[in-house]
């Protein structure tokens, strides 16, 4: 059996020989993206294609991660393979940091440059003449007062309400996953399972609170994606963050199920660590959001 041969030779780096998954994955993403484009263009069948692509993508994740877990459990991966995975995850998270950086840059650009310019600051006096009544403060929905309400008004969500609760939830989840990690290292499996479960429960609670807040903003506050630059930056930043929390929480559930099945040892549990890194990453992004989007 090829697997066993490799398992006996820890010096050998494991290279998979041939896989259908990458091609299948590319087709899935193509279907997903073509479906999304068709949906946005208003094509009738677009949503079905989009849905099909999404299902295909979910199956891909299931198969791909399944394969990796099986190979790992079969003992195919040595320390060098482990290092490859670590570096891969690290640089993947770095690319995510840069993705969020683009949206933070948009926020800072609007607050520090484009909005003051629209108010006529600096050498942009002409724009001040265009909209003499525009109050170039922050938050703003722009000189056009873009808002779903007829009078162009909107309200924002104060930082020290639900957002502060959410901050507490995520910071606590950062603590619980660290406790879970220590439990893993000490071999306390019971503690590990409890605190890992607590972590994703906190994550899902966070998402629930966020969904409630979105509903409130959309229906009662007049705060929507279309509410000028404030609404744009608010929903895109918190929305992409929420998406990442969702993915992270699903990853936590997967890791938890693997713990229940008896995977991982006190010394070898990279998948757990990778998810923990990711979780801390979404935590740090949230702190940035709380400070710059909600608070200041």
């Amino acid at each position, binding site marked *: 059996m090829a697997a066993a041969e490799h398992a006996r030779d820890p010096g050998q780096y494991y290279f998979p*020989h041939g896989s259908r998954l990458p091609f299948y994955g*590319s087709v899935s993403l193509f279907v997903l993206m073509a479906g999304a484009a068709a949906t946005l263009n208003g094509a009738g069948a677009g949503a079905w294609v989009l849905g099909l692509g999404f299902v295909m993508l979910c199956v891909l994740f299931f198969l791909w991660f399944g394969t990796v877990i099986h190979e790992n459990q*079969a003992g195919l991966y040595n320390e060098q393979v482990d290092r*490859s995975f670590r570096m891969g995850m690290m640089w993947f998270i770095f690319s995510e940091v840069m993705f969020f950086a683009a949206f933070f840059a948009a926020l800072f650009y609007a607050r520090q440059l484009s909005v003051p310019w629209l108010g006529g600051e600096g050498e942009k006096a002409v724009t001040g003449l265009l909209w003499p009544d525009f109050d170039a403060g922050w938050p703003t929905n722009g*000189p056009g007062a873009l808002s779903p309400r007829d009078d162009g008004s909107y309200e924002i969500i104060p930082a020290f309400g639900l957002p502060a609760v959410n901050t507490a939830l995520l910071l606590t989840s950062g603590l619980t996953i660290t406790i879970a990690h220590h439990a893993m290292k000490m071999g306390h499996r019971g503690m590990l399972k409890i605190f890992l479960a607590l972590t994703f429960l906190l994550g899902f609670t966070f998402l629930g609170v966020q969904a409630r807040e979105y509903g409130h903003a959309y229906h009662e506050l007049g705060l929507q994606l279309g509410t000028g630059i404030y609404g744009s930056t608010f929903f895109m930043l918190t929305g992409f963050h929420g998406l990442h929390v969702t993915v992270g929480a699903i990853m936590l559930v997967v890791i938890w199920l693997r713990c229940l099945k008896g995977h991982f040892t006190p010394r070898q549990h990279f998948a757990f660590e990778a998810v923990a890194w990711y979780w801390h990453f979404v935590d740090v992004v949230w702190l940035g959001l709380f400070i710059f989007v909600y608070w200041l």
Partner: protein
Amino acid sequence: MSTAYGSGTAGHVAHHGERPRGLGRWLTTTNHKDIGTMYLVFSLTMFFVGGTLALLIRAELFQPGLQLFNPGFFNQLTTVHALVMVFGAVMPATVGLANWMIPLQIGAADMALPRMNLFSFWLLFFAFVLLISSLFMPGGAPAAGWTLYPPLVLQSGSAFPMAVFSIHLMGASSIMGAINVIVTIINMRAPGMTLLKMPLFTWSWLITAYLLIAVMPVFAGGVTMLLTDYFFKTSFFNAAGGGDPVLFQHVFWFFGHPEVYIMILPAFGIVSEIIPTFSRKPIFGYEAMVYAIASIAFLSFIVWAHHMFTVGMPLAGQLFFTLSTMLIAVPTGVKIFNWTATMWRGSLSFEPPMLFALSFLFLFTIGGFSGLMLAIAPADFQYHDTYFVVAHFHYVLVPGAVFAIMGGVYYWLPKWTGHRYDMELAKWHFWLTTIFVNVLFFPQHFLGLAGMPRRIPDYATQFADWNMVSSIGAFGFGLSQLLFVWLIVKCARGGAPATAGVWDWPHGLEWTVPSPAPYHTFEKAPELK
């Protein structure tokens, strides 16, 4: 536990050394050489697709007046030509070379993450299926230039979301490819292959990969903002809501400037491999070459607004971006100097790879110097959006990046195929390409300085002569590339057998394996002297 999974795993893993035949091989291979070949073939195909679009552009510009296309379609041509050439031809060519050569150069058996490697390739393929099919949508392909500036790009038709999503796919593909390169170079080197013993091509790709990871996500963010402005009423680039179209230009060029270095740094690496071989001397100032690439990469992050001088910016900004841009000439000058110094008192011979490298040296330098002219903010006010800019970036990209890639292909082709190629034919290809590339692009300097705007299908009659010359050069250049394809096909099918070393003075691990390189190489790490 392990027995339960073990049987399932063994079923999926093809036996070592066995490879599926036919189409299935290319759909499932995780071998770095197969994937490298696919990237290179894809790139050559896209080079001809993008080239055909370029020839349509030059056909329209052959004479003043609107001859062949309406202006809207002309704009689609320039846009898709650029996107295809940047993301479909040049980048995949360097990725293909990286796939083939990095494991061979550092003594690794394969790339570190082989399945992800294949995923990167097929994602790129489907990204282009999406992009090219957008040409046939109602309203045509995006027509706002590859820079996709709003508000113009927001007037695109059904093609718009397809272009955005295809950029997302390309970005995912590039990021995964870059992660693979970094992990391979950091984690898979043969014992004794310290960082400062690595061949310069590998070094150039290590640094390029960091650039890719840092800027592709920013571009993805930028086009996502375009998408939500178009479909979901956000106001990132809409002044009425407090946004600013100029924001997109900042985001785009924060990506876009490192992007052009992503195309040229691997080219530097290739030239740094070729010149020592045919000078029969080690590269002059190896460490300085490494530090020069790293400096260029760092500087690429702090020069982006030199693309935006005419948008209007504070004097301090103009000074900063002018000076930081000119600073790039220092490490680039170090590289040009060291390539020249490598040849000094060398025992030179002029095989096709060396010819392309030498041509690169002269012609890339022309493009570099016109870049210095464009870096000067007050002068740029005159040059901006003229054919001078077109001439500049085509000089750094065609006789720059593309010549280096062709040189690289001529350099490593015997290693890939195991055959020597037709030297006479290759020299014909070289001379025709070099002559026509200058006929094609040099007159565009004159046109630009005389005030001819870029991205315009019609022009004033005083520009007629040089446009005709340029178009003749374009068709000559395009037809010459058929020789390249013919030569590659001939070499792949047969020819005199190549030795392991191929050249007179081979240096580096890739020349220690037989030609053609066996399907699996360095399964046992080589010993380094």
